[in-house]
């Protein structure tokens, strides 16, 4: 079938870019028009993305590649720019534009009173552009450019309220920590340039080279691991996860868009996009699977004891991203992408609902909320739906995708299955804890007892996302492998398992029940664990002291080195400069002594000069004639 809309896929990132430039051009006076421009730009992109997706769904999953724009030519090496449309990135296009559109709408309400609302909307537009361009990038270098650009947007938006010192610190931390991962990715790309036949860098050729076995063995593993390090940084996997919870200092819509639904999924997307590289190296896949599984359970344990509503959700995001990585690592490609897809909806929903609470209550500590259920009906209901979807309860979206991952894990790597199952239990428990503490029971502060529901412009995105959190899972129900076939072009083996379905549901419900008993009905004392094993509670509450560990192991030694380098700079480098400066000054002082204003002295000096020149000239003539 002839691709029609796919040819115009480049329009999708174009509109947010235009919106960005427009808002930038209008400047700070665009506080009214900025949001409108942002929403319109994103909606047009969303429509185009939908058309592209529908066409891809009708077609047989053939990729459309356009790369006629020659960018770099150096000798035989030619690097082209272009874009590629395939099922995977058509899906990503729709997810990104959809969430971005809803977040744009939501932000109209959330950021209403902010003086820099137009700047905010221009950043969102820039981010949406970069993310979409990243998704349809046709070669690795192009992807890397936009990869960095989304990082910049993330930095700008985390530090949006830059007069808060924590926001500044968080922005810097996010930028630096992800940079560590980016260096890995960059070295990976360099290795690819080095080892690829003809130095080709587009995804099609990379897939072919690794598929044919042109590159295999150790070097394939090395490249795969380096690319995965990039993904670790972006997707907040252990050990580079520390920036993501801190990134919650940014405005909540940003947490929903960038740090839950789209940008952090870029790491997962990268691994999925480079999947042939990983398939060439079973070791690398193992690493991906175990890092993902460890991150999933590790972050879930931390989320159990946090008090800040956004931090709980942030750790939950880290945990779910770990799930996706684990899925990719065990070869459940479609399941991982499926989870990415559903997670984008319900995690954006949860963040936006949390944002709705924060917006009306100006409070982030769940122990100071309580009783919101009665006063914020829409937020409460949508939060429940998001929570159930995240916990993986039938028939919400998260259930289907999580079940798909668990079923695959059950068949290929039982160890990871049990880790995943336990994580699911923890997930259900901390979501129940969050919900019952924040929404049920008596109000724990005056403000919480008289809080009002958010305006319609904020609840509308919640309702839409809630609907998708319910139905998105039916895209790929067990027993039908349409999604997998469409994504990968080949039918995978059937791994549905009734046992897994029942187990994952039981576990999720058990988690919720336990949460209800402890925090809802209060039949179990809340401190039965923290009372008995205070150290465990402390360990989880202080996030396993990872931040402190990094502080002592990396930050402080670097500070010490920096101090000495500073001394070197201050006294040696600057010393030399100062020495030269003072020498010149001294020379100048001597010069001024000659300038005494006495014309007679000047005349005398001129005469001396003349005599010297005359003597030299005569002497020269004499030497010439004598010689």
């Amino acid at each position: 079938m002839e691709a029609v809309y796919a040819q115009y896929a480049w329009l999708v990132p174009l509109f947010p870019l235009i919106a960005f430039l427009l808002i930038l051009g209008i400047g700070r006076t665009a506080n009214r028009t900025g949001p409108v421009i942002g929403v319109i730009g994103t909606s047009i992109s969303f429509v185009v993305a939908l058309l592209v997706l529908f066409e891809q769904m009708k077609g047989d999953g053939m990729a459309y590649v356009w790369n006629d724009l020659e960018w770099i030519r150096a000798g035989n090496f030619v690097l082209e720019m272009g874009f590629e449309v395939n099922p995977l990135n058509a899906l990503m296009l729709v997810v990104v534009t959809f969430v971005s559109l809803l977040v744009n709408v939501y932000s109209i309400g959330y950021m209403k009173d902010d003086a820099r609302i137009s700047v905010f909307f221009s950043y969102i537009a820039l981010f949406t552009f970069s993310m979409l361009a990243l998704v349809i990038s046709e070669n690795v270098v192009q992807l890397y450019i936009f990869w960095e650009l989304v990082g910049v947007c993330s930095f700008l938006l985390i530090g949006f309220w830059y007069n808060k010192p924590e926001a500044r610190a968080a922005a810097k931390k996010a930028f630096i920590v992800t940079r560590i991962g980016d260096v890995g990715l960059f070295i990976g790309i360099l290795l690819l340039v080095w080892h690829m036949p003809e130095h080709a860098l587009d995804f099609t050729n990379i897939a072919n080279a690794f598929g044919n076995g042109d590159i295999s063995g150790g070097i394939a593993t090395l490249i795969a691991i380096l690319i995965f390090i990039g993904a670790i940084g972006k997707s907040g996997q252990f050990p580079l996860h520390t920036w993501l919870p801190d990134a919650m200092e940014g405005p909540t819509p940003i947490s929903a868009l960038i740090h839950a639904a789209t940008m952090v999924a870029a790491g997962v997307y990268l691994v999925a996009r480079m999947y042939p590289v990983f398939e060439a190296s079973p070791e690398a896949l193992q690493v991906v699977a175990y890092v993902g599984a460890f991150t999933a359970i590790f972050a879930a344990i931390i989320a159990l004891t946090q008090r800040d509503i956004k931090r709980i959700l942030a750790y939950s995001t880290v945990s779910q991203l770990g799930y996706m990585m684990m899925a990719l690592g065990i070869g459940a490609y479609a399941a991982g992408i499926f989870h990415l897809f559903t997670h984008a909806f319900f995690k954006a929903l949860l963040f936006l609902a949390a944002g709705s609470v924060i917006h009306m209550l100006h409070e982030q500590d769940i122990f100071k909320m309580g009783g919101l259920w009665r006063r914020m009906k829409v937020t409460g209901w949508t939060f429940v739906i998001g929570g159930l979807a995240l916990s993986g309860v039938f028939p919400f979206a998260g259930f289907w995708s999580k079940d798909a991952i668990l079923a695959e894990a059950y068949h290929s790597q039982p160890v990871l299955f049990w880790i995943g199952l336990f994580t699911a239990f923890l997930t259900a428990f901390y979501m129940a804890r969050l919900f019952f503490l924040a929404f049920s029971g008596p109000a724990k502060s005056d403000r919480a007892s008289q809080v009002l529901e958010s305006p319609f412009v904020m609840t509308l995105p919640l309702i839409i996302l809630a609907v998708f959190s319910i139905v998105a899972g039916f895209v790929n129900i067990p027993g039908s492998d349409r999604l997998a076939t469409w994504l990968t072009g080949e039918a995978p083996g059937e791994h549905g398992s009734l046992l897994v379905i029942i187990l994952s549901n039981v576990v999720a419900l058990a988690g919720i029940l336990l949460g209800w008993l402890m925090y809802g009905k209060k039949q179990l004392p809340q401190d039965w664990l923290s009372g008995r094993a205070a150290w465990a509670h402390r360990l989880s509450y202080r996030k396993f002291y990872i931040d402190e560990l990094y502080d002592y192991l990396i930050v402080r030694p670097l500070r010490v080195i920096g101090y000495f380098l500073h001394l070197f700079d201050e006294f040696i480098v600057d010393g030399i400069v100062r020495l030269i400066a003072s020498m010149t000054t001294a020379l100048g002082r001597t010069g001024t002594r000659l300038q005494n204003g006495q014309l007679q002295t000047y005349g005398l000096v001129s005469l001396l000069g003349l005599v010297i020149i005359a003597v030299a000239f005569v002497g020269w003539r004499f030497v010439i004639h004598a010689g």
Partner: protein
Amino acid sequence: MNMVASFLILAAILFCIGLYGALTKRSAIIVLLSVELMLNAVNLNLVAFSRWGIAPNLTGQIFSLFTITIAAVEVAVGIAILIAYYRSKGTSDVRDMNALKR
């Protein structure tokens, strides 16, 4: 001895005396006089060459007339400056004329 050489030597001596005076004397008037001496040494040269030079002609003598005229003008201006200076600063000592330093 060649006729022109004696004139040249005399002119050189005159010039050197003038130069010495211009560079060493304290009084601005004497410095001005010394400059005149140097100019006249040049005049002497011009006239000597015009009479005993390789191609004797009147150009040198006419030039020396020019020089005398210019020198007269120069002295007039110079003296005027010196008087103005003396009136404003109350001195005619060259050593005090160090305003160029600033």
